[in-house]
């Protein structure tokens, strides 16, 4: 760290904005998570409950905060229940991708050799395509439904983590402290688990939140195209898709609220990731 005064004050200023971003992101996500988990407290309608008394496509207000959709279901309560699906699948998919990618990356990076070659060529092929296209192809081939979507999104993200972790492991495995642990008789598994893996996950901590946001957008995009969560289940992308026809007629309430919900959630993850990145940069500089 530099002792120059100007240098330090500049770093502090960068760091402060990073902290603000992290706090804002975490705050947004906490509010969304609470709203989604405690959703039933804020609404008297079920996600797929049709209000026989209200007309379909009723304007917002009265018994229905955001009106009703083309099926006569309450948009606000669907919004809340859909959050569980979106957040749940996105976080689960990224968690699976991190675990799978880290295992592959550690094994490839630590042992090297033909295993490394095979794994890296495989990730090469994966990375010759835009990720959304890959997710689209995998989802179309696996079929719709929450489980298949989680698998599809996890699968297309895992290679990036494998590469990231592998690069870290290749530098870490030759460090003195790893040698020390090895000479003091640590088993290979213990060495990897206790000494190599924790330190090779540093970049993953920054990427994973950003990736969660991206996973939500992918999920919603797939549902929007009819490849995701099958209708009548509430999911933000599927809700937007259902409201597409209303937009041209000037009815905003069926598709704008789920989009804003998505935007807020993804923004929470982006702010978190951007802030963490900023703080990581400050340490490095």
């Amino acid at each position, binding site marked *: 760290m530099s002792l120059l005064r100007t240098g330090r004050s500049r770093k502090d200023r960068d760091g402060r904005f990073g902290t603000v971003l992290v706090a804002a992101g975490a705050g947004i996500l906490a509010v969304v998570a609470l709203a989604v988990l405690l959703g039933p407290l804020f609404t008297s309608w079920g996600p797929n409950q049709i209000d026989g008394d209200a007309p379909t496509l009723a304007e917002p207000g009265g018994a229905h905060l955001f009106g009703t959709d083309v099926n006569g279901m309450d948009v606000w309560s669907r919004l809340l229940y859909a959050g569980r699906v979106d957040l749940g699948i996105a976080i689960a998919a990224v968690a699976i991708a991190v675990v799978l990618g880290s295992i592959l990356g550690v094994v490839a990076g630590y042992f090297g050799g033909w295993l490394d070659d095979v794994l890296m060529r495989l990730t090469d092929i994966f990375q010759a*395509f835009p990720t959304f296209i890959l997710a689209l192809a995998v989802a179309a081939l696996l079929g719709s439904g929450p489980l298949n979507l989680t698998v599809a999104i996890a699968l297309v993200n895992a290679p990036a983590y494998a590469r990231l972790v592998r690069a870290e492991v290749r530098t870490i495995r030759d460090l003195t402290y790893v040698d020390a642990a090895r000479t003091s008789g640590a088993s290979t598994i213990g060495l990897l688990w206790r000494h190599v893996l924790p330190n090779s996950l540093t970049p993953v901590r920054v990427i994973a939140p950003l990736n969660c946001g991206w996973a939500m957008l992918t999920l919603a995009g797939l549902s929007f195209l009819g490849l995701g969560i099958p209708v009548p289940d509430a999911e933000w992308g599927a809700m937007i898709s259902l409201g597409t026809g209303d937009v041209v007629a*000037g009815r905003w309430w069926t598709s704008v609220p789920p989009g804003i919900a998505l935007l807020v959630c993804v923004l929470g*993850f982006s702010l978190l990731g951007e802030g963490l990145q900023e703080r990581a940069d400050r340490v490095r500089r």
Partner: protein
Amino acid sequence: MRILRFVARRLLQLIPVLLGVVVLTFLLVRVLPGDPIRTILGPNATAADEAAARARFGLDRPLWRQFTDYLGGLVTGDFGTSIQSGQSVGSEMALRIGPTMELVVLAVAIAVVIATVVGLWSARHANRAGDHGIRVLALIGNSMPEFWLGLVLILVGYAGLGWFPAPSGRVDPDTDLTPITGADALDALLTGNMPALTSALWHLALPVLTLVIVIVAPLLRSVRASALEVLRSEPYAAAEAHGLPGRVLRRGYLVRAALVRLPSLAALVFGFAIGSTVLIEYVYSWQGFGQWALRGLLYRDYPVVQASVLVIALCYVVVFLIADVVHAMLDPRVRI
């Protein structure tokens, strides 16, 4: 010419990668569940009808034979026949690529220009309110689902204000545009058809704007970070201390150095934009490559899926090649 030799070598290296892509798609699309023949036959089709249809598309032959036939066709530029439409895949695709390219290339170009101008400004005013505001705005744009943003722009620009045309099609059919490349604005320009040009540009405005808003953030971040590095570097401090005028400092020291990392990122963003166009084309009924490929995928139309995967991969690697060449031109330290 060193650059030409570099390009030629890279193009040769492409062949095994693309061959790998062809083999993999060919196998995967056949191994995974789904049958293209069942989707074109009616509910009353007999087993004999099905066998006849299979024979018509050569799907009754052994797998290796199908593959060699397909590869033989590819070498002569024949992508096969679409199972859904019965048309030549190559000519169907030719109609679809132009409109999508028009969208993606315009959007990426506009985004690069915006990112450069705003990113440099942001770096020179780093950590002040304006800089923070720009970064948060870019993040918000980047966090929007592109298909939803498209719908909101339609809601405001078409349903609300009525300034933009309805989201159906790419050009007003009354303008009698003669298609050449499929990219309507370009075709109108080539044929000197002014009403068609205006119409095509109006139709392009909202989809391009949608794409620009979604992709500008990563480019902006990169320009800002590189520019900050330059501004805080010793050579720049020395040049500034020597009293060089601001214009020279900006042109000679800042701009070029700040753009060095942009090409490879722009290539990455280009790929991201290709993914996004599948959704944006759907929203604006653009009838481009994305919609065509998606339908092929949903109906398991083998030749269509194979051709579109191959074209996307080809496009992606060629864009990265261009990015490398531009990078070498921007950065004299890079030897290619």
